[in-house]
């Protein structure tokens, strides 16, 4: 198979295009989704018409709710949130209605919706335009939370998400849209709930997703002559592929969790708690979390960098862990 190098943004576009072409029940709702200027949704309006690719007013509660309702009645909506932070105005629809209705109805209704949202810090966008929020979605019941880190995964995971019959929050890190990678032209899926071991190693396990996967891989590469680092990308924040992580810990006995989300009661805590319960006997030392402290994101770029994990900080932490 010849390589085909495209961006994550193009990979996402391709997944939506293919699925929408095959299944006319798939619709796309959101603010400015008809615009020809936005990578992931570019061209979809022209291809599928304004009925199916539909601009919504700036009222997230109403159009996310409409997506949920459409899903309940048999459509398969993709709903776009311009930035995940804006979803806070619509949390009842997302967490109560989208996440719980299938359970509350005793399975009488299904909600095959994919709520896509841009996430991520690192662009000086300040406290209300930089969050990740995946821990929050994962904490609440009934929602699968997907976070691709490569163009290949993005296409495969989005295809799976659109096809699954449950609510998904699909998160796209703004700093990864232009990252390039090999993406086969044909359709393929990556199942939700299956991690990817991106780097094999024996001394320490790092669990990291999204942009933090890239930072972790950089750190692993830099330190590889001294320490053999295993890097695992969960790819879905929930459900979690516990097995892959626990298996790795059997080998390494050491765990670092790198996480762009807030540390306190966050995804990094969950991974640590998992290991402290189910891999306790294999652990050779303390479990460390490198996550964003519980502080809003500052506008100033230097202050923002201070708070975020990065390759350098990861490398230092690896050294510390190995030294103990």
């Amino acid at each position, binding site marked *: 198979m010849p390589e085909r190098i495209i961006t994550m943004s193009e990979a996402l576009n391709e997944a939506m295009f293919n699925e929408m072409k095959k299944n006319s029940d798939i619709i796309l709702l959101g603010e400015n989704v008809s615009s020809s200027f936005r990578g992931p949704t570019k061209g979809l309006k022209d291809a599928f018409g304004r009925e199916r690719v539909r601009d919504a007013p700036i009222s997230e509660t109403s159009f996310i709710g*409409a997506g949920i309702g459409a899903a309940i009645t048999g459509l398969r909506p993709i709903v776009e949130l311009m930035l995940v932070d804006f979803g806070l105005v619509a949390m009842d629809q997302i967490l109560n209605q989208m996440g719980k209705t299938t359970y509350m109805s005793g399975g009488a209704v299904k909600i095959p919706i994919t709520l896509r949202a841009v996430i991520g810090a690192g662009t000086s966008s300040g406290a209300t335009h930089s969050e990740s929020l995946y821990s929050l979605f994962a904490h609440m019941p*009934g929602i699968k939370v997907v976070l691709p880190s490569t163009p290949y995964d993005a296409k495969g995971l989005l295809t799976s998400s659109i096809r699954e019959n449950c609510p998904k929050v699909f998160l796209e890190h703004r700093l990864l849209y232009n990252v390039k990678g090999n993406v086969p032209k044909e359709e393929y899926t990556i199942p939700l709930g299956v991690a990817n071991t991106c780097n094999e190693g024996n001394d320490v396990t790092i669990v990291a997703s999204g942009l933090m996967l890239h930072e972790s891989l950089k750190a692993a590469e830099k330190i590889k002559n001294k320490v053999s680092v295993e890097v695992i990308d969960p790819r879905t924040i929930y459900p979690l592929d516990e097995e892959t992580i626990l298996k790795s810990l059997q080998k390494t006995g050491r765990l670092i969790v790198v996480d762009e989300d807030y540390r306190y009661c966050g995804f990094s805590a969950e991974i640590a708690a998992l290991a402290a319960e189910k891999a306790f006997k294999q652990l050779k030392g303390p479990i460390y979390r490198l996550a964003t402290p519980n502080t809003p994101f500052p506008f100033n770029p230097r202050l923002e960098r201070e708070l975020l994990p990065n390759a350098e900080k990861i490398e230092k932490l690896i050294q510390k862990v190995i030294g103990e």
Partner: protein
Amino acid sequence: MLVNDKFLGITSYLMSKIVLDNDKFLELYRVMIRIRTYETTLRTLSREGKIPARFGMYTGQEGVATGVSAHLKKDDQIGSTHRPVGHLIAKGINLDKLTAELCGKATGFNKGKAGSYHIFDPETGCLGANGIVGASVPMCAGYALRNQIKNDGRVTVSYFGEGGSNQGGIQETLNLAACWNLPIVFICENSSPVVQRMLGHEMDYPQLTIDNVSIRAAGYGMPGSTHDGWDVEEVYRVAGEAINRARSGKGPTLLEFKVHQFEGNLEGRLEANEKDKPFCPIDVLEHKLRIRQILKKDTEEKIRLEELELVQKAVKFALSSPEPDIKEAYTDVFGGAF
């Protein structure tokens, strides 16, 4: 008609315009009796501890759901509130499974996991009671969106209260429905026709500064009007117009019906509301039917008896039904294999 003469008494309506033929009249009467009988029975069940939690009652509002649903087909959808029983029954929901659900039984529509606040029965288009004030309304826009895209003539009715009318999600959805020209009818049941109340408590500050919520319709470029919810004939007439409008692709309408809640308060009543009594939709209808000589004593008794039997059968079904299997606590989170 706008309820400006609400203090003038209600006899003026009784002989006004005749909209309904005799059979339809009796059909509506039967539905209202069914709702009333059902809720009366529920109160007993509830006092006996057979229903695990308190919930909102529709008693006094029967005219609205009945007049509205008379125009709805099985496939049309409704979205309801924390006071859902009337809406559901008027839409034709099965009483056995409804009662079983309210009692938390395995044979309920939702295996006893929903309770009153979240009953879903896709079969009859009952797509959601809702425990969050206003939350079913955005979802209703989604049902209507499906209807518009599938273009199969279905319509959606979305119920909410005058208290709910202030929720952001409802106001957003009124706008969305207008922008997308959705086949939907919004029904605001205004239970504060005289004094503003919330959960039965009289409020010290108003929650609305307008008499009629329906005037907000103009702010979304859709038709809106306010009517007497205790006059099922009036409800039938105006709901028919709005539903036809939606069905023929002309877009959304906001209808407001004034209602008097007789036993509706979740936190216990504060006052007897004797003053509300004249606004009982069943009394009003019976009066009309008698004056027009449609309802004979024996027909009335027959209907009441038949409905009581139906309800008693439902209660028996519910009470003799099994509890859900304990492992149901863990199923249906994602609606399939996890």
